């Protein structure tokens, strides 16, 4: 079982992100379960949502305490909550920022971990360019598909088309494609370094 935890703030589409992750996994014939950490939702408040992916039926209903992957939609959360809590030693991290982990003072987190599984993505900017708003969720799940190889970009596109239609779907697909390619580029660089 592969477990993903998404951290963000109310209004950033955190819950939608995990739902779309689950749809992308489903499109590839896998079992997936997405659910939010429930609370009184309000714009700007920290939000957590979860996605499990497996090849067999998922029965477990506990929150994800030891994720295989973290998607962090808002870097300001790093000062507020311990987003890295329970992250597995060989886990993946995708962070929405236009800085590097080192610039954000996160070099310690990387110690003893697989650096090629850590990636940053300027998802707000990608959102602004293609959707007209700094909504980072779709670029991040496409970026995560590239980083983890868990599913194909086409499956993310299918999930987008299931959720949105018309111009919004088009914009999101463009954003997803750019994010996917950007992460792939970064990974090439990391592998050569």
């Amino acid at each position, binding site marked *: 079982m592969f477990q993903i935890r998404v951290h963000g703030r109310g209004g950033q589409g955190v819950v939608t992100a*995990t*739902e779309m992750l*689950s*749809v992308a996994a*489903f*499109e590839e014939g896998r*079992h*997936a*379960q*997405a*659910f*939010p950490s*429930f609370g*009184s939702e309000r714009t700007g408040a920290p939000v957590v949502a979860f996605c499990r992916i497996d090849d067999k039926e*998922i*029965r*477990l*209903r*506990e*929150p994800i*305490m030891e994720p295989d992957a973290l998607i962090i939609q808002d870097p300001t959360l790093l000062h507020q909550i311990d987003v890295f809590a329970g992250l597995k030693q060989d886990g993946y991290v995708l962070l929405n920022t236009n800085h590097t982990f080192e610039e954000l003072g996160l070099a310690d987190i990387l110690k003893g971990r697989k650096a090629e599984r850590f990636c940053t993505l300027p998802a707000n900017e990608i959102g602004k360019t293609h959707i007209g708003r700094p909504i980072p969720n779709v670029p991040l799940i496409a970026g995560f598909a590239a980083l983890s190889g868990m599913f194909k970009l086409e499956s993310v596109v299918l999930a987008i088309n299931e959720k949105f239609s018309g111009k919004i779907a088009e914009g999101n697909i463009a954003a997803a494609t750019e994010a996917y390619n950007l992460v792939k580029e970064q990974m090439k660089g990391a592998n050569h370094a």
Partner: protein
Amino acid sequence: MLKQMEGSKAVAEAVGLCRPEVICAYPISPQTHIVEALGEMVKSGKLTPCEFINVESEFAAMSVAIGSSAAGARSYTATASQGLLFMVEAVYNASGLGLPIVMPVANRAIGAPINIWNDHSDSLSQRDSGWLQLFAETNQEAVDLHIQAFRLAEELSMPIMVCMDGFILTHAFERVDIPSQEQVDKYLPPFDPRQVLDPAEPVSIGAMVGPEAFMEVKYLAHAKQMQAIDLIPQLANEFKQQFGRDSGGLVRSYFTEGAETIIIAMGSVLGTIKDVVDEMRAEGHNIGVLGIISYRPFPLAEVRAALVNCKRFVVLEKSLAVGMGGIVATDVRMAVTGTGIKGFTAIAGLGGRSIPKSSLHTLFRQAEKEELQPVTFLDLDWDVVNKQLEREKQTRRSGPIAENILHDKGVVSAKFG
């Protein structure tokens, strides 16, 4: 057709396939996406003929459902938590009048303290209301139980609550097989009411009944639930033959055969329990699980048959009879009367507290050694409890409990600054 979708939306699709003729709902919290999605289906003409009635309260929702069901329309509403409590007088009337209304309860806690999260306090508070209560383990089962519930309700002429864990199921995206219209039509015939308000053949429904006949009417409600003990497995069997899935029934056993320790529970927590039991069995522990699907009627004989050869059982329930202990546990103990089997109660997950595998591992191992108290409160923070008890001992004006506990736990409460 297999779909990856939210539990509430899946239930809405299933209900749509059951061709309800009247859906009434109070659309404000506590409510789920179920009636929202059904409202859209009615408005777009996808679900027709059907009237969607937006009412002014949950009390009105149930009252409208009573009226429409008595007029011969297949009637549906949905609620949860305080919403269910607000409609209680009408809830009893629906069952007392024998009207086959189907209503999901997206199980949630009841305040005070104010809480929106999952447990089973709401529908269990209606234990004796005369409604049947079926508990879904997964979203697939919630879908399937709705289809079975209309058939069962209309056959008995009694109302049914389909209970599904609020948030944990209603808001979870998972794989669900949505049947076709043809499949559902084949299983669920059009509503043929046992009683109907028809101007061509006038009757009254809702007579005042004095001491001379009240007990007989009430007994017949009980007799119908006893009939349901036979009917529920029959309908689940027929469902399996037609849809190819095990869904519904009275109870569901998982490695209970020959198990020394059996865990009993209702709803979605059964999934987590089964994962723990798999891990423990792999280590050689002789442990099994009994899921209760039909809480009302309570399947005394089936529960007894499943437990009779075990050494001990734990009823893990998301409900609390304050001043007593377990609610489900009381019924389970009744089922094993005279066997001498040791029973333990574990109260867990109240107000949405998560029930992690790690806590269950500890609990079940303690149960195996019979080291548990008769009633255990899983993961209760004894430090804050004892601190408050001490505070009350020391100070007369010890203040509001909820606020004190939040303060002790360091949680930001209603106060700002």
